């Protein structure tokens, strides 16, 4: 009844407005439909490779060559996942990447938080010059720095101290975790400039009165930072850490340089690009030298391995989606 009345009223008003209201309503509905199609289409576009990988992961080799099977596997199996895990040395590479990602991420966030606070609150000579350096840090591609770093770390030396203690020789940090840690404690590594910028933006938006009150009550500068500002900065630090973790997890530049020699440390970035080679190598050992791994099969294994290594990232993203997106939207507020 009420619906009918509403409709009646609507057409009544429409008649009075000379058809304007109806036109407007139709226009709105068409706009909504177009928007929905566009938005959902693009969502599908982005998700499609992921869905494709998931469906590939559960196919048997037979399904790959069956042209009637497109998305839903006919013979459901998890053998591809098992094989992929084996050839990517999952037990080793996943743990190494996890270990490096977490520890290095913490180190990076810690140093960037300190620097961000310094830039946000203190006045000191040449501050603008140093901040320009932060921007430079964002802009310089890591590939430019990698070669000299490789040489530097093969004979690492800090202000001549290590050389003096170690009979004129630096220590070799390549192939060890310390190279990563050294870079990250010095605000180096992936996108550190971005984290400094984010932290600075966060601290700048905190009210100054908090710190002033702490100073009046007799806190020194470091104590103020630790017990007044740090607790409030936790959400931002978590988002920075998540970004850092994600980018270290997929990092292909540094791990190739630092772990170029030896297999003691083996990250995902080391294992995935060489996976197909490993696989054909091992299968040749079994079936004899002439054996060629079918391209379709090896690609299926590779895509499954990629999916496996993406799983932790997907989980993190689903759980902490908000802190990823919101940290960035806060940062933009003051350019």
């Amino acid at each position, binding site marked *: 009844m009420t619906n009918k009345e509403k409709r009646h009223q609507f057409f009544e008003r429409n008649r009075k407005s000379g058809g304007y209201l109806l036109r407007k309503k139709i226009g709105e509905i068409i706009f909504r439909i177009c928007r929905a199609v566009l938005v959902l289409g693009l*969502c599908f576009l*982005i998700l499609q490779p992921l869905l494709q990988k998931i469906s590939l992961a559960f196919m048997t080799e037979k399904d790959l060559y069956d042209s009637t099977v497109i998305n839903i596997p006919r013979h459901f199996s998890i053998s591809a996942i098992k094989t992929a895990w084996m050839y990517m040395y999952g037990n080793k590479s996943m743990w190494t990447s996890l270990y490096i990602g977490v520890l290095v991420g913490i180190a990076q966030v810690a140093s960037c938080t300190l620097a961000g606070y310094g*830039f946000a609150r203190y006045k000191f000579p040449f501050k603008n010059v140093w901040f320009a350096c932060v921007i430079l840090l964002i802009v310089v591609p890591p590939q430019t720095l990698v070669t000299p770093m490789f040489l530097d770390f093969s004979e690492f030396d800090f202000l001549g101290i290590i050389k003096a203690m170690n009979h004129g020789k630096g220590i070799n940090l390549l192939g060890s975790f310390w190279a990563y840690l050294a870079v990250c404690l010095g605000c180096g590594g992936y996108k550190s400039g971005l984290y400094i910028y984010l932290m600075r933006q966060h601290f700048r938006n905190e009210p100054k009165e908090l710190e002033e009150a702490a100073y009046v009550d007799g806190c020194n500068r470091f104590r103020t930072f630790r017990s007044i500002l740090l607790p409030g900065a936790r959400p931002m630090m978590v988002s920075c850490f998540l970004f850092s973790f994600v*980018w270290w997890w997929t990092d292909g530049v540094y791990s190739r340089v630092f772990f170029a020699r030896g297999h003691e440390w083996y990250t995902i970035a080391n294992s995935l690009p060489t996976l197909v080679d490993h696989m054909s190598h091992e299968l040749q050992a079994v079936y004899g030298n002439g054996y060629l791994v079918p391209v379709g099969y090896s690609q299926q294994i590779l895509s499954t391995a990629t999916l496996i290594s993406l799983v932790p990232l997907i989980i993190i993203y689903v759980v902490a989606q908000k802190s990823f997106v919101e940290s960035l939207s806060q940062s933009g507020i003051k350019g």
Partner: protein
Amino acid sequence: MAKTVKHKNLAKGNAIAGYLFIAPFIIGFVLFLVVPLFESFYMSLCKVTSTNGAGFAYKFIGMKNYHDVFFKDAEYVPNLLTELKNMALFVPAILVFSFFMAILLNQDFKGRTFVRAVYFLPVVLSSGIMLGLETNNSLLSGMADIIKKDNSATSITKTLENILLTGEKANTFFEYIIKLVDQVYDVAIASGIQIIIFLSGLQTISPSMYEAAKIEGCTAWESFWKITFPMISSMILVNVVYTIVDFCTKSNSDLMTLITNTLFVKFDYGLTAAMSWVYFVIIMGILGIISFIITRWVYYYD
């Protein structure tokens, strides 16, 4: 008198504290950026050979590496040119796309959070090595080819493309558009962060401005160009810089592969350093020019 002394002390203390807080950054910056940068510049002027053991021997050869980069290496210059051409193609496309998406996502509709999460997903998933693996996966591209072949008779886009490109009106503009449509996936996955930055910019514009404009008789089109665009212009600057940097540093371009291969396959350290330096200088130049131009018409509302 005593007051000014105390004031000075405070300022001095603050300066010291400030430097202490950014000390890790300064040390790291010098140790892992300035020093490697200069070393790589020095290396680009040398012939670097690996001696037995872990050492390296440098022999100064002047500009020969740079000469080699431009006149001897068959791949570098063409790769560089394609890279720059792609940049000119993609950066505007990414900006327009992300701006457009941000405006869409700024409206109210059901499932907005979900859509926003999906658009941001590539930032998390398609980074680093994953990007290279994705484009290299020949099985998927093989499948795509098969699908294309099957549909070739009925594909609307293909027919449209043929009409547009062979007709009298065939021009570079259509080619540009078609190339972009072909690669809309690449554009979409490269614009996650830009969408978020634009979105946050859009949300800071106060609705009362639009209201006032509407009362004065502005159409939506006019208020877009007169309100939204100027208010968001500082975000455009940020995004232009970010997009260019992001585009240049992604590791799956041919140029980056060439540079990495020169390092890890040929072990020609000097040449690698020269290659990176040429690229780096060009990018910095482009960034400088573009941000200089954009800063001139960025509008700050304060």
